[in-house]
């Protein structure tokens, strides 16, 4: 599908083309709306789903009172968070304090534009798709670091610093892990990466890369086992200790959006995206993403968290060499095959 923005530039074209342009634009807007609303509802739905599923794992019920099976719980939570006192500590840096939760939502939502739900169902089929994703996830670091810094509270600062160090380190391994996929498919374009997996999902040739990406994904999502930035038994709530009301809610939504995004990318990069026999592409995509998300929740229900220095050690001493070796070997094999 042609890129909507570039179409706009050609508005000077003959009149019969204008109709085409406007209809494409309308299609784009619909897709944007669907992805925007879809991502947000999935994030909201996940707050319910994760709690129910964790409840299941933990011998208890989870939220089951609001609506059928507790399905309206996210709505009740939203109302609660919107009506709560939205307190800004007097000692906080006001502007940054307000900005920080917005950054996380915006950067994650922007990253969604490159996710191909099907071959045609994608907001922006950028040929630098993966680079755009890495750029957006780097922006996310600003959110948690600034939130911790601007709160001017000790627990928040420690959480923010941990977050900045953790996310910046793990971005390195994430990027290196991705290059294996890029080498195999010869493109940063996610749709071409999916197409490249018609014969064989990349998880098979790229298993080490997948493992690194998965672990880095946990660190980017800041979920157990890598939730050190908000380790509640140590740092109360880490970088968002001072946040309340909907601002706190935005961090929460940002986290669930991030989880969906990482799941979607794992599916796209390693599990053939929307490819699959029989069912329509978007269903295959949805099913695969759902399975990955359930896996994330299961991990959260199982593992304790390592210490901060152990996390860094894992990154720099194990994941970095592993991803470099993966890159070198993949490159060597591709070269050998091309000869």
């Amino acid at each position, binding site marked *: 599908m042609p890129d909507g923005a570039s179409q706009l530039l050609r508005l000077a074209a003959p009149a019969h083309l204008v109709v085409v342009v406007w209809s494409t634009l309308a299609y784009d807007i619909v897709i944007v709306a669907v992805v925007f609303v879809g991502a947000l509802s999935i994030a909201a739905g996940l707050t319910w789903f994760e709690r129910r599923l964790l409840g299941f794992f933990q011998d208890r019920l989870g939220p089951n009172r609001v609506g059928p099976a507790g399905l309206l719980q996210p709505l009740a939570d939203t109302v609660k968070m919107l009506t709560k006192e939205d307190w800004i500590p007097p000692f906080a840096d006001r502007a940054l304090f307000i900005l920080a939760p917005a950054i996380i939502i915006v950067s994650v939502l922007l990253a969604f534009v490159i996710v191909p739900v099907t071959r045609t169902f994608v907001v922006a089929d950028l040929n630098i798709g993966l680079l755009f994703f890495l750029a957006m996830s780097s922006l996310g670091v600003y959110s948690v670091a600034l939130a911790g810094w601007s709160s001017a509270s000790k627990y928040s600062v*420690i959480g923010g610093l941990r977050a900045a160090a953790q996310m910046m380190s793990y971005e390195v391994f994430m990027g290196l892990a991705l290059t294996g996929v890029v080498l195999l498919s010869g493109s940063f374009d996610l749709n071409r990466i999916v197409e490249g997996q018609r014969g064989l999902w990349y998880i098979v040739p790229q298993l080490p890369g997948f493992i690194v990406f998965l672990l880095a994904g946990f660190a980017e999502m800041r979920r*157990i086992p890598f*939730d050190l930035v908000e380790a509640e038994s*140590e740092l109360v709530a880490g970088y968002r200790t001072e946040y309340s009301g909907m601002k706190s809610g935005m961090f929460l939504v940002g986290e669930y959006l991030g989880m969906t995004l990482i799941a979607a990318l794992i599916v796209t990069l390693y599990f053939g995206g929307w490819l699959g026999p029989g069912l329509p592409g978007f269903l295959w995509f949805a099913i695969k993403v759902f399975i990955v998300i359930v896996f994330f929740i299961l991990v959260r229900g*199982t593992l304790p*968290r*390592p*210490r901060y220095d152990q996390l860094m050690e894992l990154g720099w001493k194990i994941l970095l060499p592993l991803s470099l070796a993966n890159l070198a070997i993949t490159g060597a094999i591709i070269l050998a095959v091309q000869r």
Partner: protein
Amino acid sequence: MPVTQQTAGVTSELAARFADLELVVQPTADEIPTVWVPAERAREVIGHLKSEAAETYPMLYDLTAIDERTRRHREGQPASDFTVVYHLLSFEHNCDVRLKVALQGEMPTLPTITGVFPAAEWYEREVWDMFGVGFDGLPQRPRILMPPWWEGHPLRKESAGRATEIGHLQMSPERAEQWQEMLAFRPQEWGLEELADDPEIMFLNVGPQHGGTHGVVHIVVALRDEEIVRCVVDIGYHHRAAEKMGERQTWHTFIPYTDRIDYLGGVVNNLAYLMSAERLAGLEVPERAQVIRVMLSELYRVNSHLLFYGTFAQDIGALSPVFYMFSDRERIHDVTTAITGARMHPGWFRLGGVAEDLPEGWETLVRDLVAYLTPRLDDYDALVLGSRITKARAKGVGRLNTAESIEWGITGPNLRACGLEWDFRKKRPYSGYERFEFEVPTATGGDCYDRVWVRSQEIRQSLRIITQCLDQMPGGDYKSRQPLATPPLKEPGTMHHIETLIDHFLGVSWGPIIPPGEACLGIEATKGNNGYYLVSDGTESAYRNRIRSPSFPHLQVLPLLAERLEIPDLITILGSIDFVMADVDR
């Protein structure tokens, strides 16, 4: 009280070594050799007993005081207004010695023994806080349990025993502001003045309200990056004047208060209190009551250990184990509810036995519980102890060796984690523990991991004991028929003639009168050695009710464990030493 062989040993040695002193030996109901020494030489005598004597006493088990000014029965004891009591313990020879120092005057002082026993610091601060007895050479910030604005010393006899005796507390805005100001953090008040101006140091107040501290405790942490340079523990937020209430409640009505000391230990607290009280009263507990007590105690031990296990896992970030263990605890509570009628605080043991006989069908309940719990323990070990992340977090963290443990008064599973196989149920069997077969799990590392491992194994041993109780439950009375058993058994005939009716009425409404004397018989409680040092003056309530709780010394050792480590380690250590703030502050 006849002087035993053991008594003769240490007292004659002291008499020979300190021939210039007039040592007075006091017979006590618990047969612990009790020697009065002059204040100015106490430190020397204690130092001698700790390291030079033929039988060394390397552990300061307890240090407390008695306000003697209104005590009537002091036959044979030197004149004293305030008596400071030192209780030392020897593991090697399995014996105790008690030293007493007589002090005259309203606000007496004596030299500190922190040079001999560093663990004495908190105890001495508590004595000053509670009695106004000063210790020369004790470091700053002497109040330990009471807030800094408190006036007076609560355990002195002239201090009010009830809030209603001292008038309304008026919290004016000025006073509120003044008290707030007193609570503001000033590094020099915490002995941290040398770090106060260091720009690299950040002071972090962990608590009194914090998710990882297991109750209201305030830990001042001086951080360089995330490394803990210094750490100071501030307790007292959970102080509920249990010892003062012990002087007001009757011997009988104090029992439910003990439940609330180590609030996870339930009836184990009752047992610790009753061991001393029954010794003073000369009560013999029937065999059936003893076995019932053991069975209930072990149920509560499992309960406490399960909670510890789950919350430890939670402290290192695992979400699920705590839910599994809490639902298991609920099953244990189902059994205790069927037997005692209550969950955590049954207050079910009585002077001379237990409150009621076991209900019909208790065997099935207990047997089902044991069958249910046993296989689940293996799952928990795989989930928590088996996890590599747990090992990375807990192994080698917060190490304590046996010598340090003894030095700091560590008992119970924490001591066994260092390698000393010492369980008071084995070494000094009480309540018929000698009849049961069980092992004493012992580790060697003394780190957080071993402390958890020891407890996970102890749950299995407790289940073993419970099974033996099931199989060997003797018949007979559930309460003694001696006169001081309270309330007396109703059958046969209690309510049929006026004499027994009066007996019953007085015992329940007024309370039994326990003959004058002193006793302290520590037991293996869930967290370590718990002992009630009871002084009776021949009235219906204790003259002095001193609660020696295991959590108090266990928390005092925290800086030794946590300094030079990092914040996450502090939380791991806090989770692993298994303290309860009510047990620390009483």
